[in-house]
């Protein structure tokens, strides 16, 4: 039985919850370090963590391919990056496994983990994932390609080109849109015509599913079904997970300048992490003491990761010209 077909056991869900907590604690620490002038730039996953980790938990890191986007900090952890590795990336250190300090943190890549190196451009990973999906279909090993993006990326021509191509060729691709309703300062009503993103799937003859991104079990179930379809040769699925952007677009943005204060306060009260915790407590899978213990554990992990990354060396300036071509 492959991992994706396994039932969601308490152990697996608690592991996912620990990843969610790890993402939040690391992100909080990154903000402190940014305000202290130690980190130049970060993009927060705050509000997206549960949806991201639930989606990856339904897939098979190590077997599948992942084309992540810059807000996929929690997804990167779920795919196998460690806290220390992501801190190395935040500090742009030489040992940053994604790019050796060349890219801004948020461009995740690791060939051995199947995480396809991203760029900071919005949307180009979508048709790229169609091509990877085509290759995986040709290989016939049952692997799939997961690609994620915000609703802003759905305005790009690459969104259409990628979905069109993947649908024509029944590529094993999961298109996962994390709709937080804001692309920097532009709200969904000025970004997305029609009711939303999921409905667009109909035009390509593929399933389009909208799901609450704060519901771990709902997201997991939707992605698991998309994965089943992909592995069975039934083609791609478009998923729209509705999430909240509980932080500004990036550390160079302040959403209080263009968003209503009451709305921001209301959204902060709908943070998906306490909802996930409560759902686990309701199932009897977690106690308040367990929760406190997990948070302590994660905080110590963040402490160690930060110390290690802060002390790690910067890239050697002499390496600037390396890896432009194969022979240099």
């Amino acid at each position: 039985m492959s991992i994706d077909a396994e039932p969601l056991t308490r152990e697996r869900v608690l592991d996912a919850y620990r990843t969610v907590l790890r993402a939040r604690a690391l992100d909080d620490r990154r903000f402190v370090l940014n305000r202290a002038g130690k980190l130049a730039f970060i993009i927060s996953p705050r509000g997206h963590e549960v949806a991201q980790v639930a989606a990856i938990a339904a897939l098979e890191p190590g077997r599948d391919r992942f084309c992540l986007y810059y807000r996929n900090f929690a997804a990167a952890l779920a795919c196998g990056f460690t806290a220390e590795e992501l801190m190395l990336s935040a500090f742009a250190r030489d040992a940053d496994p994604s790019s050796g300090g060349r890219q801004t943190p948020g461009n995740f890549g690791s060939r051995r983990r199947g995480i396809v190196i991203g760029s900071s451009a919005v949307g180009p990973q979508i048709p790229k994932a169609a091509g990877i999906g085509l290759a995986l279909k040709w290989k016939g090993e049952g692997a799939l390609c997961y690609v994620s993006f915000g609703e802003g990326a759905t305005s790009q021509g690459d969104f259409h080109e990628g979905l069109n191509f993947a649908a024509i060729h029944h590529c094993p691709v999961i298109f996962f849109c994390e709709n937080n309703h804001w692309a920097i300062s532009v709200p969904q009503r000025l970004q997305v015509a029609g009711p939303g993103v999921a409905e667009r799937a109909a035009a390509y003859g593929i399933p389009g599913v909208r799901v609450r991104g704060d519901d771990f079990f709902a997201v997991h179930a939707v992605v698991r079904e998309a994965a089943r379809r992909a592995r069975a040769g039934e083609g791609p699925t478009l998923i729209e997970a509705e999430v909240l952007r509980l932080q500004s677009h990036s550390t160079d943005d302040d959403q209080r300048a263009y968003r209503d204060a009451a709305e921001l306060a209301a959204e902060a009260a709908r943070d998906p992490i306490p909802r996930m915790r409560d759902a686990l407590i309701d199932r009897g899978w977690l106690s308040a003491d367990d929760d406190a213990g997990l948070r302590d554990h994660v905080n110590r992990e963040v402490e160690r990761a930060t110390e290690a990354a802060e002390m790690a060396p910067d890239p050697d300036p002499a390496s600037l010209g390396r890896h432009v071509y194969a022979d240099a």
Partner: protein
Amino acid sequence: MPERTLVQAVRDALYEEMERDDRVCVLGEDVGLKGGVFKATEGLQQRFGAQRVLDTPLAESSIAAVAQGLALEGFLPVAEMQFADYSYPAFNQIVNEIAKVRYRSNGDFSCPLVIRAPTGGGVRGALYHSQSPEAFYCHVPGLKVVLPSTPADAKGLLKAAIRDPDPVIFLEPKKLYRAERQEVAEGEAAMRPLGSALVVRGGVDVTAVTYGYMRAVTTQAAARLSQDGIEVEIIDLRTLRPWDVEACVRSIEKTGRVAVIYEANRTGGFGAEVAAELAERCFASLDAPVSRIASPDVPAMPFSPSLEHAFMLNPDKVADGLRRVARY
């Protein structure tokens, strides 16, 4: 050895490389049953099937993106852009994604692929089937750019491009597709290394550095100048990035004079880079200013024969330019 036109040589290179290595595949608009609008892929789908010779939707960004996805998964795709003029929708994929994969992943990923496109004018193609956009791609570290001018070079360089570990933009002068037949070697004997220029005519008075269709024009101009006692040494660059600076320097040390002849419009053309580099390298050897002989700075080549003729360089214009350099 069989006699081949340039476009037949391109087709032969694809055929041989697909026979040799089953990772090689071809994709683009109309490359399948039709065999391409210029017949560069004629018979390939019949021989290798509709998977390895894939008709794509009419969407250049996804052609480049899908090729990239295939390359990231270990295939060796050769994507066709129907005309170089139509490669611009794929510009972001080529420049931001494909060219930077190796660098931005610090060497973890690579993207070996070829993007072929017919280039240049003189065929009544007008504004949108005549452009010479090589300078855009030559400006991009991470890309290699090839622009052959003979059937044998086209075949040998395309075979080398397909085997190259880095992405190659392969521009084919459409004016030369059927201009001449030449004996072309088969198999390994046909190989030509990237990055090597060729002295195609010896001379002592002035060096003419050129490439593509302008090689033929310059050769005719040189024959006229020879009647006036001016002997032109012609260098066909063949590969534009990396280009063979040393071959040009050696020639200029002999002649003391150089003009760069290119079909694109003058300002910011690739020949401007060649001129700048040679001015720096050869200052002490030069008896005349480094000169550019190029097309006028109008947006593109018009349709009307009178305007097309006014745009295009011809042997008269090139001879005039070379004579000025020789007599400076």
